[in-house]
């Protein structure tokens, strides 16, 4: 019978494993909910920020936006969703992709630092653009 939880020594490695549906926690393969062999996402900070914009003749200009978070010692993994408020209220993911007049554009190129995310000025047909972010304590760079 497949074990749901396995704590102890597995082929010489001490640890704890919690298996997904149909997977044996005592085995070596399969989707694990907790896996001592691998890293896990560790949430550092999350929130939502909205750009400041103004009409620039043919489109809205969205001024540069900085999302600050408590400083880490490295550049962290982030998940960033783009929200076009008032249009479709759609969340667009991943970063680097956006929406203008039914087409896609790739002008949002967020920069990740150890204490902030910087989003440069960009244009959109949509007046209000929000960014939902999750910063994880998982390092991108050594």
């Amino acid at each position, binding site marked *: 019978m497949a*074990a*749901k*939880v396995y704590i102890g020594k597995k082929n010489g490695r001490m640890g704890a494993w*919690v298996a*997904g*549906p149909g997977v044996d*926690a005592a085995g*070596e*393969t*399969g*989707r*694990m*909910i*907790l*896996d001592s*062999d*691998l*890293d*896990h*996402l*560790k949430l550092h900070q999350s929130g939502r920020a909205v750009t400041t914009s103004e009409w620039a003749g043919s489109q809205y200009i969205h001024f540069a936006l900085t999302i600050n978070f408590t400083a880490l010692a490295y*550049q962290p*993994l982030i998940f960033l969703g783009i929200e076009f408020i008032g249009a479709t209220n759609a969340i667009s993911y*991943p*970063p*680097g*992709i956006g929406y203008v007049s039914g087409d896609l554009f*790739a002008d949002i*190129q*967020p*920069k*990740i*630092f150890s204490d902030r995310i*910087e989003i440069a000025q960009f244009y959109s047909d949509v007046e209000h653009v929000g960014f939902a972010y999750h910063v994880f304590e*998982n*390092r*991108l*760079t050594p």
Partner: protein
Amino acid sequence: MATPRLFINGNPGRIVLSKSGYDATSPSLAEGNKIFDSDWLFSGVVVLQGLIQTSLSSGSGSFTIPFPKELGYEPSVMAYYAEASAGGLRLVTVQPAFYWLGTSITSRVYAPIRAYSNRLEVTYPAYNSADPVLQNGENVFRNYRASMLVTVLGV
């Protein structure tokens, strides 16, 4: 007596960790008041992450990023083209592809990424003489080392 925050059951096996002030042994414990539940389908297992320097300049067919172990399933993958920029890391790409903005040209390189149970394979972009953008991109790809930000989730 303090509210128990850890529930362990042997058969069927289950572990529940609750937030402070909430009873982990309660069958009606709300999801939002849990820190961990072994019945979840995912709790943040990361197979692989980091910035990977690619090396397709030789024009070989593909390159491989091995996983730390055989998973027994094909995992979810997020990959971006990324480059160092003024002390930060700039995310450029859309998934699952490379996107290159050169200094004098703007070109795209689509490099399909395929996940296997023990590795990722990034395929060298196909040459297409009818597509000058791709052709241009391929030349850029051939001549420069790109970096790719990869996150492989254990789900």
